[in-house]
Structure formats: structure tokens, C-alpha cells
């Protein structure tokens, strides 16, 4: 391109800064969306992988009552075992000065030589310090939430004994990335939940585990690592060897709670990262194509002149590609900056949820290359189409203005429809003809409104689904005020009597939880098994009753039932249905393996639950009516007195207030989900705004003479804009209405994609989701029409009319 043409390009770009700006805007939105969504996904995935790797997350955890230390050496020689490490994990409570509620605390033993698996990363950086007696590191969220500092003192209550400890600092551990209190809600509550890392020897003494471990962490040998079947066999073998020491749980890494939560979030991110930005970018690409094509086609006379002067077609095409290039480069640059900023913002949400060292927003050149390439590619394609139609003509033809638009009647003017057509005012005839004569552009306008509405409805519906999930699981299925877990199961009758007399207690209900392994026993299929918690329900459960979620199960539940009600997901995982037989391997009490059968399915949304009468469970465990989970309704005025009384009892493992859990979940959701939904809604709205504005500007540029004529006839800019808005209004209304359906369908798809063992989102689309999306679309559409109005107002229509035909 010679200097003159380059100058021409720069000045043309400057002259059309308004419309090119609108185009670069939509490009920016599409690219920022893609970069931030994929960026967050990559960042989170890579941070997790590198943390697990560097800090040696174990391949499996086996919890036992107590196993002698020397068993580690013996089991390490088993085939398939790479390395084993023993440890101690205890449940206790911590008192933080100035904070009234007890902090549910898991105490984790750290050997003098340091941990082999699940190593610790100090918040302050550097190496972990060797712990002396009464020294501890605290989990990072708890440490930060309570604004603790090295040297601060805490009181830890373990088996009724109180010990004062000194904090060394905050740490992150690959094992404790997502810290939930047992019996707590869905969201971490770092004010009331903590993990403290203390000297192993001290915990062994405090937990009456001298020369013993109660957890074994290990890694499979390199030959079998990653081969699920073999891994399972090895894990079964170790569990069998440990049987005499009371195995309560044996989980592969994929079933660790933290791993599952993080994985489910990463999977969700991947789904949303691939669906939404892709849809947006398609719209952006098509809009770029239409607008640039039109822009260049409008320069037909100049193209003809340049050809007449002897410029070859390729150098003219090259010159005009500058338009596409400018928009593409600007869009890619701004989109990258906005995308990275947004990526960092979204990452900070994940940092507040996960105790994971999440790197600063990563810069992924391949991502930027792909998105820039896409936007550039489509911008250039549009240019090539537009300029191609002009350069293919002979210069003589190109210099003549294009022949008048094809007249002809559109579909609506023919056949019986013509009688209706006659009734339309002229402005609507203009609108309808414009729509039908530019089918591709009409489709783009329609498509962008459709995509934006679809994304909005789906995002808002996901928000509603989480609300519904919380409501079902924590309001419908649970009615108690407090849940108290006991360290050991005790006689239910005496516990009920005892708790009834505690201050402020209105009613008591005794349940029983017990770990077990369930195996599907359906003939002919491969046996699937899962380690689950059996929920033994009180005989007439008024407080917690998950069976309430499926009325049929609730009605049929009977204290004498000899069988299990399974959550639908658990039944699916085990490959069983109502009436099928199950094998139940108890992980406490008698540790027997018994046969049972599926009595019914329950539509729960969280975890894999199995429910049966507490009385039956007691019998299976070889006990008579015992309890380890007490539900209370209480006089909230007397909360403090009750807490004080409960804290005094060494048998109490954990106290959870339902209102606290609910409040914590709802606050977290409001903050995190709220932010994400706002981002998505604003993005979709901007996308629709940009697309509508751009296509309307194209329409305007094609019909400048119409505008001029109408203005000559005395139409105000407002009334002229109103006519043009008719086109946008009609196409967008259709797009929005179809978008409702699209949103419902996408919600269904995402709900299916999110169906994991820890979460099942209910398929919910509320009227308010649709209403709100529609309102947002209306706001953005009005905004785009206001901008369009400014363009109409500023159009030099006298000049337009002077241009020769």
C-alpha cells in the first residue's frame, strides 16, 4: 500500500470512528468473554494440578480407628503400593478470643521430619518450620478471616482437654482446599471451621493413639497409577490388611471432598467457557462480516476510480483489508485487556472460596491468538466480500452508483396475505421490506438477540437453581435449629432425656449416622460400589427428613422397613433400582457385611445419601437404639447458654446451627454467584447492544437517501429513528421470544452437564428469570436505539441528497 492510500485508510478510519468503534466494541466484548472464561478455567485447573503435584496430594486416604505405626512399613511392600505415610487426624474445637461461637477444628499431625504427602505451603512463603509442642499452623482461610498473626494464642479442646497453643502462621494444604464442617452447609465457613496442623507426637498423646496412626496416606506405584481398576484392587487389598484396625473409610483421591468440589467447579467452568463465549464470538464474527462488507461496498465509486487510475484489484483489496484489520486488532487488544482484568476479578472469587494458591491471571498467548485470529479472520472475510463485489466490476461499472435495489414484492405482499399488507401503515411496509430483502442481516440481528437472551436466561436460571437447591436441602428437608454430632453412638433414650433438659431446648430428635460401603448386586452387570454415610432416621422424623423431597418415599417410610431409600444419583452410580438387592459393608460397630434392598428413590441434590430407620441401622450395627446425631429445636434467646452447656461435654464432636450455615451459604452465593451473574448479564446485554447497533447502522447507511427524503418531507430525527427502530424492534422481539426457549434448552443442557456425585442442579427456570432477561434486553435495546437516533440526528442528509444517482 502506498503512502497516499495509507493516509486515506487512516483518515477513513478516523471519519468512521463511530461505526468502527461500535464494531470494535462488540469485538472487544466477544474476545474478553472468551479470554476471561477460558483464562479462569486454565488458571484454576493449572493451579490445582501444580499444587497437587508440588505438595504431593496423596492418591488415597484410609481412615482407621488405630493402627500400629509399624504397619506402614509392612503395607508399603504390598504390590502396587508406591509409598505410605501414617498420620493422625482428630476432631476438636478451638476457642478464638473475642469470638463467641466454637470453631469446629480438624487437628492434623505433622511428623518432625515433615510430611511426605499433603505437604504444607506457608502463606508467608518459604519452608515450613519444624513444630514444637503446643505450636500450630492454621488453615489459611480461618487464619485470615480471624485476622490472626504468628504468635497469637488459641485454646484447643480435644476430648474434653483444653490446651493452649501458639500459632506459627497460616498454611494451605492440597488436602484441605475446600474446608467444610461435618454436618455444615455447602459453603465453607472459615469463621467457624478450621484445620490446625500440630506436632504428630502431641496429637498421638492427646488422642490416646500412642505409637499408632488413624490415617494412612499413600501413593500407588508408578506402574499402576492412573489405572482405575488396578488402583481399586490395591486399595481394597490395603483396606483388607487394615481390617483388624477398624477401617472407617478408604477413598481414592477422586472421592476426596475437596477434590470433588474443586473438580465440579472446574468442570462447570469448562462447560460455561466453551458454550457462552463461543456463541458470543459467532455473533461477533457474523456482525463484523456484515458491517465491514457493507462499509466497503459503500466505497464502490472510490474503488472504481482507483481502478480507473490503474490500481490492480489486489492492491485495492489489500487497502480495504485495513478496515477489517483495524477493527480486528483494536477489538483483540481491548478484548485482551478487558478479558485479563475480568479474569483476575473472577479468580479473586475462587481465591475466596478455595484455599488454593491460585496464580495471578495467566496470559495465554494461544487463547489470545485464537480469539484475535477469529475476530481478524471474520473481519477480513467481511472486507474481502465487500471489496470483492466492487473489484470484480469493471472500473466503468464500479464508478457508476449501484443499480437501484431490487424492487419486487416480498412474500407478505403476495397471496391472501396481501389484504393484511394493505392495512399496514407505510412505515411498517418499509420495515418489513427491509427485513425480507436483507435476510442475512435480519438473521444476524435476530440471532444476536436470541443468543444474548439464551445466555441470560440460562445464567439466571442457574442462580435460581442453586437457590432452589438450598431451599430443598436446608429448608424443606431440615427443620431443626441445631445439629449436634456425638463422638460415639450412645443410647438414644437416655440421650433424648438428657438433651431435653438442656437450656432452651424445645424438642429433641435422635438420628444415627454410620459410614458404610454399598455395592450394587444386580446380576450380570459389573459391581459398582461407593463409600457413603448411612442416614438412620428417627422413627417419625419431624426435623431432618430428606425423604420429604420425594413425597412417595416420605409416605411409605416406616420404622420397621428392612431396606434402604437411596438418592436417585446413588442408585444410578450403583446401577440399582427399586427392588434390587444391595450389599452393605458397615464401617463401624459390628463391621458386618449384610444384604439389603432398595425400597425407594429420593430426589436429593447433594451428595450420595442412603436412608433407613435409625432403629434398623442400630440393629445392623449390633446395638439397640443408639444415636450419634441429635437434632434440636430451641429457644434462640438461650443460644449462648445452650452452647456453653454443649461445649462442656467431651462427647460432643460438633455443633451446627442451621441458620448460620444458611446465612453463610446465602452470603457466599450472593457475593460470588451474584458477581458472576452480573458479569454474564452485562456481557450478554452489551453483546446484544453492539450487535443491534451495528446492524441498525448498516441498515441506516444503506438507506441514507431514504432518511434524507423523509427529512425533506418534514420528518423529525425522532420519527425517522422510530421507523428504523421498527426493524430492530421486530427482529429483536422475535430473537428474545425464541431466546426464552433457547435459554430453557441451554439450562437443561447445563443442568445435565453439572450432574455430579456432589451436586445435582434441579432443572428450574423461573418466570422471573425470563422476565428479568427480557427487561435487561429491553434496556440495552433502548440504549442502542438512542445511539442510532444520534447517528440519524447527525447525518448530513442534505449532503446525502446531493450525491448523484
Amino acid at each position, binding site marked *: 500500500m502506498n503512502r497516499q492510500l495509507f493516509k486515506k485508510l487512516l483518515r477513513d478510519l478516523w471519519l468512521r470512528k463511530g461505526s468502527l468503534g461500535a464494531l470494535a466494541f462488540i469485538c472487544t466484548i466477544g474476545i474478553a468473554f472468551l479470554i476471561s472464561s477460558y483464562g479462569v478455567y486454565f488458571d484454576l485447573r493449572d493451579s490445582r494440578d501444580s499444587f497437587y503435584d508440588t505438595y504431593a496430594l496423596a492418591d488415597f486416604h484410609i481412615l482407621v480407628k488405630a493402627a500400629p505405626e509399624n504397619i506402614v512399613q509392612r503395607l508399603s511392600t504390598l504390590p502396587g503400593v508406591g509409598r505410605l505415610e501414617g498420620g493422625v487426624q482428630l476432631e476438636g474445637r478451638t476457642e478464638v478470643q473475642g469470638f463467641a461461637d466454637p470453631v469446629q477444628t480438624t487437628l492434623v499431625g505433622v511428623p518432625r521430619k515433615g510430611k511426605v504427602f499433603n505437604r504444607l505451603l506457608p502463606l508467608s512463603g518459604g519452608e515450613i518450620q519444624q513444630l514444637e509442642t503446643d505450636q500450630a499452623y492454621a488453615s489459611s482461610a480461618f487464619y485470615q478471616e480471624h485476622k490472626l498473626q504468628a504468635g497469637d494464642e488459641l485454646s484447643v479442646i480435644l476430648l474434653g482437654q483444653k490446651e493452649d497453643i501458639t500459632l506459627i502462621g497460616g498454611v494451605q494444604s492440597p488436602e484441605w482446599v475446600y474446608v467444610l464442617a461435618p454436618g455444615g452447609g455447602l459453603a465453607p465457613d472459615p469463621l467457624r471451621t478450621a484445620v490446625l496442623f500440630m506436632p504428630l507426637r502431641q496429637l498421638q498423646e492427646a488422642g490416646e493413639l500412642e505409637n499408632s496412626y488413624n490415617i494412612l496416606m499413600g501413593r500407588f506405584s508408578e506402574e499402576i497409577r492412573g489405572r482405575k481398576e488396578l488402583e481399586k484392587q490395591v486399595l481394597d487389598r490395603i483396606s483388607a490388611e487394615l481390617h483388624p484396625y477398624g477401617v472407617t473409610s478408604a477413598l481414592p483421591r477422586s472421592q476426596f471432598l475437596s477434590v470433588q468440589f474443586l473438580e465440579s467447579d472446574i468442570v462447570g467452568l469448562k462447560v460455561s467457557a466453551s458454550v457462552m463465549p463461543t456463541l458470543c464470538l459467532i455473533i461477533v464474527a457474523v456482525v463484523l462480516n456484515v458491517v465491514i462488507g457493507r462499509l466497503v461496498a459503500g466505497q464502490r*465509486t472510490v474503488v472504481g*476510480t482507483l481502478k480507473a*487510475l490503474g490500481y490492480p484489484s489486489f492492491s485495492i483489496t489489500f487497502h480495504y483489508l485495513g478496515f477489517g484489520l483495524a477493527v480486528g486488532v483494536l477489538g483483540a487488544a481491548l478484548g485482551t485487556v478487558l478479558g485479563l482484568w475480568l479474569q483476575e476479578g473472577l479468580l479473586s472469587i475462587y481465591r475466596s472460596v478455595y484455599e488454593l494458591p491460585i496464580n495471578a491471571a495467566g496470559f495465554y498467548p494461544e487463547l489470545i491468538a485464537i480469539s484475535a485470529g477469529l475476530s481478524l479472520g471474520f473481519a477480513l472475510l467481511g472486507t474481502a466480500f465487500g471489496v470483492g463485489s466492487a473489484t470484480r466490476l469493471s472500473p466503468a461499472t464500479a464508478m457508476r452508483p449501484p443499480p437501484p435495489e431490487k424492487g419486487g414484492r416480498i412474500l407478505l405482499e403476495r397471496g391472501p396475505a396481501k389484504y393484511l399488507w394493505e392495512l399496514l401503515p407505510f412505515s411498517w411496509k418499509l420495515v418489513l421490506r427491509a427485513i425480507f430483502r436483507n435476510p442475512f442481516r435480519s438473521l444476524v440481528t435476530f440471532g444476536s438477540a436470541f443468543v444474548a437472551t439464551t445466555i441470560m436466561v440460562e445464567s439466571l436460571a442457574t442462580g435460581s437453581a442453586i437457590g432452589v437447591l438450598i431451599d430443598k436441602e436446608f429448608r424443606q428437608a431440615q427443620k431443626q435449629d441445631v445439629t449436634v454430632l456425638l463422638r460415639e453412638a450412645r443410647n438414644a433414650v437416655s440421650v433424648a432425656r438428657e438433651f431435653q433438659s438442656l437450656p432452651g431446648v424445645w424438642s429433641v430428635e435422635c438420628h444415627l449416622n454410620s459410614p458404610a460401603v454399598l455395592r450394587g448386586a444386580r446380576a450380570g452387570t459389573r459391581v459398582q460400589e461407593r463409600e457413603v454415610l448411612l442416614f438412620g432416621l428417627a422413627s417419625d422424623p419431624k426435623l431432618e427428613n430428606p425423604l420429604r423431597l420425594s413425597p412417595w418415599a416420605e409416605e411409605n417410610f416406616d420404622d420397621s422397613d428392612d431396606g434402604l431409600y437411596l438418592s436417585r444419583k446413588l442408585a444410578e452410580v450403583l446401577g440399582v433400582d427399586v427392588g434390587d438387592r444391595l450389599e452393605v459393608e458397615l464401617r463401624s460397630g459390628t463391621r458386618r457385611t449384610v444384604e439389603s434392598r432398595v425400597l425407594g428413590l429420593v430426589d436429593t441434590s447433594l451428595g450420595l445419601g442412603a436412608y433407613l430407620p435409625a432403629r434398623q441401622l442400630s440393629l445392623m450395627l449390633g446395638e439397640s437404639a443408639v444415636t450419634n446425631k441429635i437434632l434440636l429445636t430451641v429457644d434462640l434467646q438461650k443460644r449462648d447458654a445452650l452452647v456453653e452447656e454443649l461445649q462442656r461435654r467431651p462427647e460432643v464432636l460438633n455443633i451446627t446451627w442451621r441458620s448460620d450455615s444458611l446465612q453463610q451459604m446465602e452470603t457466599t452465593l450472593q457475593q460470588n454467584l451474584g458477581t458472576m451473574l452480573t458479569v454474564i448479564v452485562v456481557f450478554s446485554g452489551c453483546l446484544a447492544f453492539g450487535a443491534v447497533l451495528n446492524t441498525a447502522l448498516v441498515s441506516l447507511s444503506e438507506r441514507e437517501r431514504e432518511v434524507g427524503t423523509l427529512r425533506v418531507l418534514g420528518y423529525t430525527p425522532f420519527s425517522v429513528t422510530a421507523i428504523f427502530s421498527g426493524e430492530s424492534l421486530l427482529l429483536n422481539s422475535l430473537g428474545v421470544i425464541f431466546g426464552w426457549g433457547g435459554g430453557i434448552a441451554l439450562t437443561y443442557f447445563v443442568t445435565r452437564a453439572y450432574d455430579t456425585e456432589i451436586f445435582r442442579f434441579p432443572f428450574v427456570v423461573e418466570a422471573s428469570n425470563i422476565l428479568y432477561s427480557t427487561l435487561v434486553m429491553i434496556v440495552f435495546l433502548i440504549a442502542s436505539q438512542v445511539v442510532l437516533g444520534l447517528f440519524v440526528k447527525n447525518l448530513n442528509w442534505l449532503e446525502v441528497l446531493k450525491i448523484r444517482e
Partner: protein
Amino acid sequence: MGELEVRALDQVTLEVQRGELLMVLGQSGSGKSTLLNVIGGMDRPTSGEVIYYPKKDEAPPLHLEKAKDSALTRFRRTYVGFVFQFFNLIPTLTALENVQVATALNDRPGPFNAKSSLEVVGLGDRWDHFPSQLSGGQQQRVAIARALASNPDILLCDEPTGNLDSETGEQVLKLLTRVHKEYGKTVIMITHNPESVRIADRVIELKDGKVSRTLTEDEVHQLWQEGHH
């Protein structure tokens, strides 16, 4: 019903001498512009021959009717300067830059560069004005400077005064006469304006795509008189 074939030019035989100023008259639709486009290598005839004979030894005769697009592009770039009724200046370039758009392509040595060709047309002091800052006559003079600057053999002018008032039109005609006489350019000019015919060496009239006649000197004089009054 098939499409109607419109013959813009039909059986035209025309020979133009080097250094001649040929004026083409005719009503609208008579085929004047098509004739000019065919001569300038901007369109190809469906049949017949269009031959351009460059100066001695410069190049062999060029058969425009069967030349490839690239050859036509080179032909226009080297031998032809166009002046259009609507000037066809690029609105976002200054007068000088508009001229440079043509000179940038041409390595044929000539008497002018971009700046001096603007001086020839009397716009040496307006070189940095944009087309929108120039009057119609001035814009047309820039177009003439653009046509001159690349030192073409032929100037093809399509109603160069058609969009100008008579006084400005007169100035443009004088300029074209000067270019023709002083620099020996072959000029083929289409006009509607009977007044312009007086500067022509030869005047032909087109009717329904055919050369209907060549006007005699008397007829030219009479036409000019009519126009003048």
C-alpha cells in the same frame, strides 16, 4: 421473457490521431460514456477491435478488446488520464495527495510532478486543501492535474464541465486547451455543452450507439453561436 439486449455502441468505427482534440456530442443514452470507457480500457466491447498505437518504439500496438485485466490496468496507468464529470476525487485525501495517488503508480518520466501539475492548473497554493474545501471548478482542476501528472498520452474527459457553472466551465475548457496545445496530449472529450465545441479539432455526434456524423466547421461554428446566445 428474456432480458433485453441493449447495444450501447453499435458498429462504431473511429480513428483518433495522436495530438488530436476530439469532441463527442450526443444525447444521454447515445453511448458517449461507453465509447470513452472502451477507449480508456475501462470496459471491453462484446465484439470488434480497439487498438492503441503507442509512440514509435515504445511498445507494440495494444489490442484492448482482448487484453487481460492486468494488461488493461497497466494500459490505464501508463497511457490514460481520466477527468470525470463528478471529479471522483478521494474525499479523505488533500489535493496534492489525490494527485500523488496517480503518480505513485507511474514511473513514466514527464514534465510534471504532483506539485507542479497542481501549479499548472493554478492550484499551487491549495495543495493541502481537502476536496470538501474546494469549489467545483477547483476540484475539477485537481482532477485534471491528477490526469496530467502521470504524463499520459491520452486525456479522456467525460463531461468535465457538466457539473460546473458556465464561468468555471470556461476556465476548465481553457485549461484543457492549454494542456492539449502546450503538451501535445490527445484529448477525447464528451460534452453536452455546445459552447465547448469551439476548441475541438473534430466534433462527432453519436446517436443510438452509432457515429451519426462528423460536424463540419460551419456546423461547429453555428452550434457554438447557438450555445453562446
